[in-house]
């Protein structure tokens, strides 16, 4: 992998703050001149990764190389990178010119050259004639332009941008996106861009790195990421999608929503549980005919500017989202067709919860720092390490956290057509995955209850 083509090589980066692991074995290789976007929800570790790249934070493990040189323990002021901060971080006591000239003056560049380069940078960001303005008198967008000029004037090998447009209004954001893209083309330097805005990532990037929970979920071009999401998280985070539980019957045949479908995926084995992703615009909808693959009733229809967004329920009770240029009336019977190539089949990361546990005695087991009653276990003594399995749908969530055996908060919600798949994070940082028909909100605090019958104990 250590190809000289790569300007940035991040290998096996891990980082924890206290007990919380924010980066878990992240590796990333960036080609010279690429526009790479690190995309993920807040708290996924993307900003931490960028700060480690800039040198403001240090990784607990792993190696960072820029242009082949190991810079893992090089302080930020000696790294060939420059950063554009989310909240601009312009020096309030300096004017626009002195802000931009700051780095060049430190490098003892000659005054006349500084002037030339500052003017060029200002021209590049469209801020000519603003040299002597007080930075505090500039608008947010203007401040961001100065911040960009301040970074690029140093001609870094890599420009890091930490959600640079997040504080701007929508219109300004769209304009700046285009300008950033142009700037990237003209400058020819590598951009590493951090954002939580998937649309921004799709518009700007050559390569997108999707992150969640401190791990890289998928790396690919915008088209790859959108069309071939690697897992249900990516599918849900990028664009709209229908995500359903399915079973791979055999190569090229998958079963979901109560019937078998032809698809193009192979190599999952027979009867393997899978997630199936179908983009709403890939479902063809028509008035009820005999040639449809699936039937249903329109539940809602909303005009979205260019297309209509409809929810359709099938006779088996699945709810699917469809986007189409034609509107169908609520209550109308419709037929649907899905092309084999539009059915994306993905490995399920897990099919049930697995916890490390310790037997207390033959009817009690401890896991998730909590004691549970379990069915009598013959032949297993107290203190023995075991593995506990609990099915997703056998975990009960309660409003009243005192009613549960332990408490956690809802972190990630996925609608699977006929039920929700939730991730509940305990206060110790463990994840419990739950299938439920009840509606919960992100960050809801819930009590978790598991009945003795649903605890399967396996010897290690």
């Amino acid at each position, binding site marked *: 992998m250590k190809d000289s083509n790569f300007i940035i090589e991040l290998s096996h980066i891990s980082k924890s703050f206290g007990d919380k692991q924010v980066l878990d074995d992240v590796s990333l290789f960036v080609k010279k001149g690429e526009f790479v976007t690190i995309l993920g929800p807040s708290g996924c570790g993307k900003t931490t990764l960028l700060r480690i790249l800039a040198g403001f934070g240090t990784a607990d493990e792993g190696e960072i190389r820029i242009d082949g040189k190991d810079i893992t323990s090089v302080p930020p*002021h000696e790294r060939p990178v420059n950063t554009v901060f989310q909240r601009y*971080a312009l*020096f*309030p006591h300096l004017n626009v010119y002195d802000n931009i000239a*700051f780095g060049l003056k*430190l490098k003892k560049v000659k005054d006349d050259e500084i002037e030339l380069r500052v003017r060029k940078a200002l021209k590049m960001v469209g801020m000519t004639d603003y040299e002597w303005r007080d930075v505090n008198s500039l608008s947010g967008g203007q401040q961001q332009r100065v911040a960009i000029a301040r*970074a690029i004037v140093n001609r870094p090998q890599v420009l890091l941008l930490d959600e640079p447009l997040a504080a701007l209004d929508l219109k300004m954001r769209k304009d700046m996106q285009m300008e950033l893209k142009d700037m990237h083309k003209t400058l020819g330097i590598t951009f590493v861009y951090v954002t939580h805005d998937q649309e921004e990532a799709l518009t700007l990037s050559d390569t997108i790195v999707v992150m969640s929970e401190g791990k890289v979920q998928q790396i690919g071009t915008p088209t790859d990421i959108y069309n071939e999401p690697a897992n249900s998280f990516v599918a849900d985070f990028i664009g709209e999608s229908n995500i359903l539980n399915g079973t791979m019957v055999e190569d090229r045949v998958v079963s979901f929503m109560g019937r078998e479908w032809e698809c193009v995926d192979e190599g999952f084995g027979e009867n393997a549980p899978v997630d199936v992703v179908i983009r709403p615009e890939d479902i063809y909808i028509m008035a009820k005919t005999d040639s449809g693959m699936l039937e249903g009733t329109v539940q809602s229809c909303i005009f979205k500017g260019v297309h209509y967004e409809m929810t359709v329920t099938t006779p088996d009770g699945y709810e699917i989202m469809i986007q189409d240029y034609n509107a169908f009336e609520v209550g109308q019977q419709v037929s649907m067709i899905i092309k084999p190539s539009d059915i994306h089949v993905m490995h399920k990361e897990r099919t049930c919860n697995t916890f490390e546990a310790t037997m207390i005695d033959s009817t009690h087991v401890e896991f998730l720092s909590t004691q549970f009653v379990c069915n009598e276990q013959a032949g297993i003594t107290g203190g023995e390490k075991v593995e506990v399995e609990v099915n997703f749908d056998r975990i009960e969530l309660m409003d009243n956290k005192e009613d549960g055996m332990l408490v956690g908060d809802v972190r990630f919600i996925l609608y699977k057509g006929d039920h929700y798949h939730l991730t509940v994070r305990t206060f110790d940082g463990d994840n419990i995955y739950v299938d439920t028909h009840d509606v919960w909100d992100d960050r809801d605090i819930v009590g978790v209850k598991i009945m003795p019958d649903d605890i399967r104990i396996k010897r290690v």
Partner: protein
Amino acid sequence: MKKFFAQAYLWFLLAMLYAPILIIAIFSFTEAKVLGNWTGFSTKLYTSLFSGGVHHSLLSAIENTLIIAIVAAALSTILGSIAAVGIHNLYGRKKAVINTLNNIPMLNPDIITGISLFLLFVSLGITQGYATVILAHITFCTPYVVLCVMPRLQQMNPNIYEAALDLGATPWQALRKVIIPEIKPGMISGFILAFTLSIDDFAVTIFTIGTEGLETLSTYIYADARKGGLTPELRPLSTIIFVTVLILLIVINVRSQRAAKRKEATR
């Protein structure tokens, strides 16, 4: 009517608060040895205060006071500003502990601070003099400097230090070129405050000044007053001190008001 009584009450209290100072100020412009006798307007006390000779010890006390105040205020400003930057970047328990320790010198009565430092110096066998007074003054001045600088740091964009490093500044350059300009107003207020506190101090100074004959203004006044008679030159001196403190306080107030206004303007 209600307002009239309220105003009258305030003026009554102010009269009580300022009467003693005013009397001293008025009688600093007459020559009489005993306060209360008016023997005609004269600025002789002012000229004789600075003429040296008889009052050589008073003049050297003033000099000592100023040297101690300037050195102590300067050192506390440096120590306190660096500390404030450090404390600002601490989290959790460590921050709570150091903040509590920082409060102790402000909460302790001066006599306790004085005696505790006296015991420290004698048990370490340090001869008391200039150095010990300055160290003692730094001890009770620095917490106020930290309090002056801290709000500036809290208002500062947390990324600008990193931005400076990112643009190639060493940590030392980033401190000099970015952080210090940002916290300078707080440092100046802290310096002025430390300076006034140092000039004013009596209780801590008396325990740490030693027996080598070093005198500050406070200890001089104390010794003089204990002898029974008030040196007449103390009247112009008190007047000058009062006016100086008045000016310094007005400067601080105007500065902080201007800062508040600017803050509002940028919002």
